[in-house]
């Protein structure tokens, strides 16, 4: 059942930054433009071997999550992005994570050019921080306040309505 005569690959192997290997179905891998590009290039060359794609920026626990997302979305056609069930799944999927994980996931989605996941993460983070106070934002993202008290008061004064 294996070797078809065409030079079409059915699977790729993806390697995480901590050297774990993941065997990924081609349809699933194609959700990432980065992986898709690699596959297309190899197919053009007519390679039949299983190819190994190293991802030096993505750890295995984050890669697992990206692949879980890709697997789910590979089952839906491209124009199915408004599918209610899928949206619900997306939301439940992201809800489980803390900000640090969400952050890494966003970076990985960007690096692997998985646009729908990137947009999803960004919108999810935006939605969850939009009602937070400045203090809470600094805490969550571990940001140091580099304003002097006077500078901060000036900015608040200028747009007092936004701080009510």
């Amino acid at each position, binding site marked *: 059942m294996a070797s078809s005569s065409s030079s079409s690959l059915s699977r790729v192997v993806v390697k995480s930054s901590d050297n774990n290997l993941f065997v990924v179905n081609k349809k699933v891998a194609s959700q990432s433009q980065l992986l898709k590009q690699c596959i297309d290039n190899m197919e053009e060359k007519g390679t039949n071997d299983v190819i190994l794609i190293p991802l030096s920026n993505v750890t295995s626990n984050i890669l697992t999550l990206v692949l879980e997302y890709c697997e789910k979305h590979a089952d839906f056609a491209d124009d199915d992005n408004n599918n209610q069930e899928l949206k619900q799944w997306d939301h439940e999927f992201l809800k489980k994570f803390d900000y640090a994980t969400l952050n890494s996931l966003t970076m990985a989605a960007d690096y692997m050019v998985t646009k729908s996941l990137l947009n999803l993460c960004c919108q999810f983070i*935006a939605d969850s921080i939009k009602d937070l106070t400045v203090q809470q934002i600094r805490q969550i993202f571990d*940001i140091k306040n580099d304003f002097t008290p006077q500078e901060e008061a000036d900015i608040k004064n200028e*747009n007092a309505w936004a701080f009510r």
Partner: protein
Amino acid sequence: MPVKSLIRFTCVCKSWLSLIKSPEFAAKQYAIRTMSLSHQNRHCAPVGEISLISYGTLDISTRFDCKPINHLTDFGRGNSWLFYGPCNGMFCVRMLKGKHSTLVFLWNPSTRQVFKPVQRRFRLSFHMGFGFDANANANDYKIVAFNCVSNRGPYRSWKSLITDVQPSSNGRMCNWLGVDTRLDDKFDGDGNLILENVSGVYFLLSFDMVDEVFIEIPVPVVAVESVLWCSFVQQRSHLQYPAIVSYGLDDSSAKGDICQYLDST
């Protein structure tokens, strides 16, 4: 992400402040926001044809809630306000006090910022049109004032009526242009004039903000009455103002409705 949250987050740290205040960020945010809002209200989706964004895409809670600034204190109740636009989320506001005093500024209702251009003296008349336009590359806005100074009837050629074009720039947010047209015809708020030529045919005279020239555009026959009416509405009541959302540039002018009435209440 709502503008209100973004403004609050400007005081998280310096890098957030400079990021959020940058024009590039603002443009991106506006595009995303407009897209998502228009998705929610399909009936008032922005129309791309002449880059006017429907008023309906603005955040309702910030509408017409103007940030008070010192030099506006002269203009209390009982004076007229005219709103033009919006253009890239920005309105051009003209305040009239009595017969002789007028003040023009740009207003961003989402951030509640008011930008005051260098005030130029221009002759004031009741029939005055304003156009304004954004230069996307320079993040610059151009305001054009059409001032009608005479009360003549149908004229022979609009070209001969353009007497004076004086561009001047303050190098900051706005460029001022004065255009003395000597026309006494129907205006809407966006630099378009409805004119009747000697043979009684109506057409639209539109000012091209980029090239700073007037363009003559035929008006669909069915639309003429509604166009005239929309001009009337604007002059009579400031609660409604018209915006031209689409028009045909070819002879057939078959694109239908010229005017959309936008309710400012």
